[in-house]
């Protein structure tokens, strides 16, 4: 009785917190772990619906019997859909100054009406049974033509989010070194860093060689090709990312279909990938991570085919040889060659893709246990995996693994990866729960497809949390998140198919709309990193007023891409990590007649406080904190 009372009260409080999250009422509830309360709320909703089923049924019968009320609900549904779309598009299109859109985005009542109406419309069909949205959805997807239309729409929507206003945000952070290398390649055929002011490759006197940046060179090469056709700009720098971001959407459907064997789930997964704020953000970022995602997805598919099918091509040898290989190395040799190629390119893009190798080695003995019918095959693979692990351990212990610097002996505790991996699409708690449910169900039901994907994610998770010697960042496990989405959607389906359609639609709708739309991770949240420094604006005053006979530029992390209009400039680097002392600064200042000083506001920690104080007290401030939102401190001195 006490427990029941406790759970009931907990459920109601969970509902109130959930309601606050969904409607964004900004009640500022001072608690942590809101996701857990949201999960409690969802479970409580299921419980309440089951408990008050008769009342809901009676209410539904009254509503559906009355055509006028039903029509009003449909209008609210359409209005609510319009609200949802315009609210998200407001953030994307940047038209928040439009009065109507502003009004729509701030009004919470349509959101509440929307949720209520769609719950009733989804669940209860009218008398002619024509308004059951689940049936409509299923019939659209089962028809090949309409399914293709839906997929094309999803891909177009995803492409639109990725490409819209692509060049309006400045080049930021690590993009600078990539575009520098791409320009260097364009002009010299080598991945040299580019001096934007003197318009030549950067030569380092310290190393007596050109400064090279060939990390993820395939991606840099693609940007160079983009420059060939479209010129050098912010937009052309990001075109390869848009292409691969869209390719990810295209590739998701067949791969998700292969692993889930369900067209409906494959379409839903594709939609989730298309509107994922993180993937949209990566597709608008001139870095290699978005290139890795479709490549890694393809690699996972290819590796799975390699180890689960047997095929020896005729050109590999005589009949006797082929028979021997079929029995003792039962790979699909076609996919094996593809896997090696894909692995090579994955590795060239990012070393983190190599997690698939040890994950596959761990999968083999697990498959041996659960896939009883194919034990002979898994025996071979387990032996090969053990040999592979011994070889790796030997190389590692003898210091022959060059990336051993990235390993620690379980010294790390980067638990942020839990959020990075499982935040999307249903919030961390629910997505993790569904993922684990799908994985455990795959072990019980011997579905080695899901087991394979699950092992890759779980190994990657353990590796990055406990072993990887690097600060935690979403991008380092972004290639695993696509597998999380596929598996967690399958996990959701595992629950929904056991429930009455009534409960299935309530849960599915709430999860889909809340966590991908009205609350949680909204599309606009990660769209073009808010609050970044805008050097194009801040450096404008320098470019317009620079006198190369008189002026010296003092720059800390100078983004000379935005000074490329200057043909020549005297630059003093203010170094980083507070290495540039006040004495050095004053000494360099004495040699300069007049000039400019600039650094990124957020990187002020790289300068000594005494240097900043001196500059603030003695020179004229033109941009930066207290003056504008450029995020770049610009001073003039003479």
């Amino acid at each position: 009785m006490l427990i029941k009372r406790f759970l009931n009260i907990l459920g109601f409080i969970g509902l109130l917190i959930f309601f606050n999250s969904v409607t964004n009422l900004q009640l500022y509830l001072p608690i942590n772990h809101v996701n857990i309360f949201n999960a409690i709320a969802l479970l409580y909703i299921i419980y309440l619906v089951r408990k008050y089923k008769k009342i809901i049924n009676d209410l539904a019968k009254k509503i559906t019997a009355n055509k006028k009320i039903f029509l009003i609900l449909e209008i609210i549904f359409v209005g609510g859909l319009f609200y949802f779309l315009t609210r998200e598009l407001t953030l994307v299109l940047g038209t928040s100054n439009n009065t109507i859109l502003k009004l729509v985005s701030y009004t919470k009542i349509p959101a509440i009406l929307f949720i209520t109406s769609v719950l009733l419309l989804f669940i209860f069909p009218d008398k002619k049974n024509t308004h059951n949205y689940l049936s409509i959805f299923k019939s659209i997807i089962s028809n090949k033509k309409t399914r293709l239309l839906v997929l094309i729409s999803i891909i177009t929507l995803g492409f639109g989010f990725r490409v819209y206003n692509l060049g309006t945000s400045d080049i930021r952070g690590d993009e600078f070194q990539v575009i520098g290398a791409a320009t260097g390649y364009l002009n010299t055929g080598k991945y040299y860093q580019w001096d934007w002011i003197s318009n030549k490759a950067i030569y380092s006197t310290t190393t007596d060689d050109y400064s090279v940046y060939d990390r993820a060179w395939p991606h840099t090469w693609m940007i160079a090709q983009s420059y060939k056709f479209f010129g050098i700009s912010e937009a052309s720098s990001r075109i390869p990312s848009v292409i691969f971001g869209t390719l990810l959407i295209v590739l998701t459907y067949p791969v998700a279909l292969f692993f889930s064997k369900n067209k409906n789930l494959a379409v839903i997964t594709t939609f989730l990938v298309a509107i994922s704020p993180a993937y949209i953000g990566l597709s608008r970022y001139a870095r290699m991570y978005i290139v890795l995602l479709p490549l890694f997805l393809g690699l996972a598919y290819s590796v799975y085919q390699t180890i689960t099918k047997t095929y020896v091509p005729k050109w590999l040898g005589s009949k006797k040889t082929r028979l021997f290989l079929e029995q003792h190395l039962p790979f699909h040799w076609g996919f094996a060659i593809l896997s090696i190629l894909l692995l090579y390119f994955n590795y060239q893009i990012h070393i983190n893709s190599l997690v698939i190798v040890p994950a596959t080695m761990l999968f083999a003995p697990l498959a041996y246990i659960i896939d009883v019918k194919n034990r002979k095959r898994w025996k071979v693979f387990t032996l090969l995996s053990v040999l592979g692990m011994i070889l790796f351990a030997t190389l590692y212990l003898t210091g022959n693994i060059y990336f051993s610097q990235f390993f620690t002996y379980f010294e790390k505790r980067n638990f942020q990866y839990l959020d990075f991996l499982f935040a999307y699409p249903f919030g961390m708690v629910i997505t993790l729960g569904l993922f684990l449910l799908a994985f455990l169900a795959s072990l019980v039901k011997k579905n080695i497809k899901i087991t394979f994907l699950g092992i890759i994610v779980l190994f990657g998770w353990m590796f990055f949390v406990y072993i990887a010697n690097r600060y935690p960042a979403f991008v380092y496990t972004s290639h695993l998140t696509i597998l999380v989405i596929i598996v967690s959607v399958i996990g959701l389906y595992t629950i929904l198919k056991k429930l009455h359609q009534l409960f299935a639609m309530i849960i599915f709708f709430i999860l889909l709309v809340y966590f991908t739309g009205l609350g949680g991770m909204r599309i606009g949240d990660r769209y073009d990193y808010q609050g970044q420094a805008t050097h194009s604006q801040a450096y404008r005053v320098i470019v317009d007023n620079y006198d190369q006979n008189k002026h010296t530029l003092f720059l800390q992390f100078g983004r000379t891409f935005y000074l490329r209009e200057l043909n020549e400039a005297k630059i003093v680097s203010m170094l980083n990590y507070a290495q540039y002392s006040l004495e050095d600064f004053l000494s360099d200042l004495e040699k300069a007649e007049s000039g400019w000083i600039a650094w990124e506001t957020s990187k002020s920690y790289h300068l000594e406080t005494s240097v900043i104080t001196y500059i603030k007290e003695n020179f004229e401030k033109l941009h930066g904190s207290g003056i504008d939102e450029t995020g770049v401190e610009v001073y003039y001195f003479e």
Partner: protein
Amino acid sequence: MKRNEWWKKIPSELFVSFLILIIFLLSFDLFQYLTTEFWWIQDSVNYNHTTIFLLFLIFLFSFLPIKKWLNKNTKLRCLITVLFFLTLLGHQKYTNFYKELQQHPKIKSISKDWGVPWSWVKISGKNFGEKWEPVMVYLGETETIIKKWTPKEIVFEITAEATLGEQRLRVVNSKDNEQLKELIFEVKPHVN
């Protein structure tokens, strides 16, 4: 069904939840203000602890026979509902007020309330900006020189240009917000 009967059919756990949240929010607001602004015991309240406190309240109320009192008492239910919404509104207003307070530097103590030019004075408090955007300290209209800065302590030097006599000591951040409490500082001349 009559309106009264309909009202009674709403589970009493909902009203218990309202009551718990009323107590929770009022307690939190009071505790936060007293410990961070009044008594300076801590910089901020740990939300892990508040979550535990909420769960404790839920547990505590599970024991109390509130359901019995609420079941037949429509007026009590109405009162709790009204109080709940008022508390939500009040809490929103308080939170906005508290956030606004954090936009201003706040002085806890000052080493002395007088000084001579070139002497150093220590102020302790909070909201003194960031390393790259520290606050500025003024005596009247004259800016002083910051000799040492930490997020909770500033040491400044009274400049030679400081006007003698009683001045308003102002700590101003990069958003041009100064401390809310007026502080008078006396600049005395050197005694030869």
